[in-house]
């Protein structure tokens, strides 16, 4: 199957897509042109860098280099999740890294080995973008889930302590605690789903939160 080579002028037309939200926001009175401009610039730089490093990885296509790159992505994502969830890396880094790495590696391997079935399973053109996309989609959900869980534990310390007093271990107590708070967290799961689909290069959730605050304060 032939691939299409999109030229730079056609690529530049993509910026036209941003005109509609800019126009709509301007019409409803939200002066966010500067924020949107910064997001577009960030997106352009990020995608340009993504293009450069992906091209390099694809050209070299070395299994160890690809593995190393995925490892770097996992470590950066792990630390980013902990920082944004407000948790101390020295206590949580290993546990969250193990959870993220096992799920990402399993999902990527499943897709590459069973679905795509390339000649070489280590092919950078498949494993790197796939692992990156799955990781990107999980990132925000993980941040919110961890932040909500530990906030709930801090806020409802007595409830968690009660489970410990009743003979629960730290792990089983956390499971029962999560279950009893599940209904309260349910709406967020939908939001996580939305974030999962919505995350893209240039997307900055902090800017998004700022936008929501601005909207709410009107």
């Amino acid at each position: 199957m032939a691939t299409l080579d999109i030229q730079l002028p056609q690529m530049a037309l993509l910026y036209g897509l941003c005109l509609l939200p800019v126009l709509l926001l301007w019409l409803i009175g939200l002066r966010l042109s500067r924020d949107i401009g910064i997001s577009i610039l960030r997106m352009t730089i990020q995608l340009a860098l993504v293009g450069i490093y992906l091209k390099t990885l694809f050209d070299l296509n070395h299994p160890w280099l690809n593995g190393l790159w995925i490892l770097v992505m996992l470590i950066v994502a792990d630390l980013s999740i902990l920082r944004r969830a407000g948790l101390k890396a020295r206590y949580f880094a290993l546990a969250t890294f193990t959870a993220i790495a096992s799920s990402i590696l399993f999902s990527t391997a499943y897709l590459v080995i069973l679905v795509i079935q390339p000649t070489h399973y280590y092919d950078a053109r498949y494993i790197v973008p796939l692992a990156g996309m799955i990781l990107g989609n999980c990132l925000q959900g993980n941040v919110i889930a961890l932040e909500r869980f530990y906030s709930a534990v801090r806020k409802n310390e007595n409830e968690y302590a009660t489970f410990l007093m009743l003979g629960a271990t730290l792990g089983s107590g956390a499971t029962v605690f999560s279950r009893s708070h599940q209904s309260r967290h349910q709406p967020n799961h939908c939001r996580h789903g939305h974030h999962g689909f919505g995350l893209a290069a240039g997307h900055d959730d902090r800017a998004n939160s700022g936008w929501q605050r601005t909207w709410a304060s009107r």
Partner: protein
Amino acid sequence: MPPIIQFDHVSVSAHEKTILSDISFTLSAGEKAVLCGKSGSGKSSVLKTLLGLLPIKLGTVYFQGTPLTPASVQTIRSCAAYIGQEPMLGADNVRDALILPFQFKAHRGHQPTEAQLIEVLQRLKLPADILKQQSSRISGGEKQRIALARGLLLGKTLYLLDEVTSALDAESKQAVFEVFSDPALTVLSVAHDPEWLELCSIIFELEAGQLTEVKRHGNT
């Protein structure tokens, strides 16, 4: 035989503030003790320290002769029942709250029968149909007695009680007193209720995190 509980020159700090300072006392099996003092004097902190919920800065807490450490704290948690002023039942309805501990590995396989549930409720002057009620719809006093019933179902012999009679009427209070008149039960409590103080054989007076007086009388 070592005392069940021993505080040996224990000091506790949290958020750079001293909560308990150089506390020493012992409590033997079957004794009933009460911690008295003004609000903020550290009464509840003694119970929390014992349960490993506050970090010990100096000294040692012993439970059945073994020093309390992060590794050994599970032992006291599995032996003691802690009941606060507004106990968390941890389940949507009363029946689920009563059987909740039996889903944990420590108590699995010892789930009480319907007859045992009703018997323990009756001991605490609670009607059998309370089992069907939503936890959010029962009163504070009922919650305290449900939490107590849970401890009895678990066969706990050490009770750490924080103002456990604060929301009880005279009849319910009497039922609770009868439960704790059992010489097999050891109690360390926080209370202001004069009737409860009568029940206890040891009174620990606390002031600003320090143990200022220990009164003992033979009414065990």
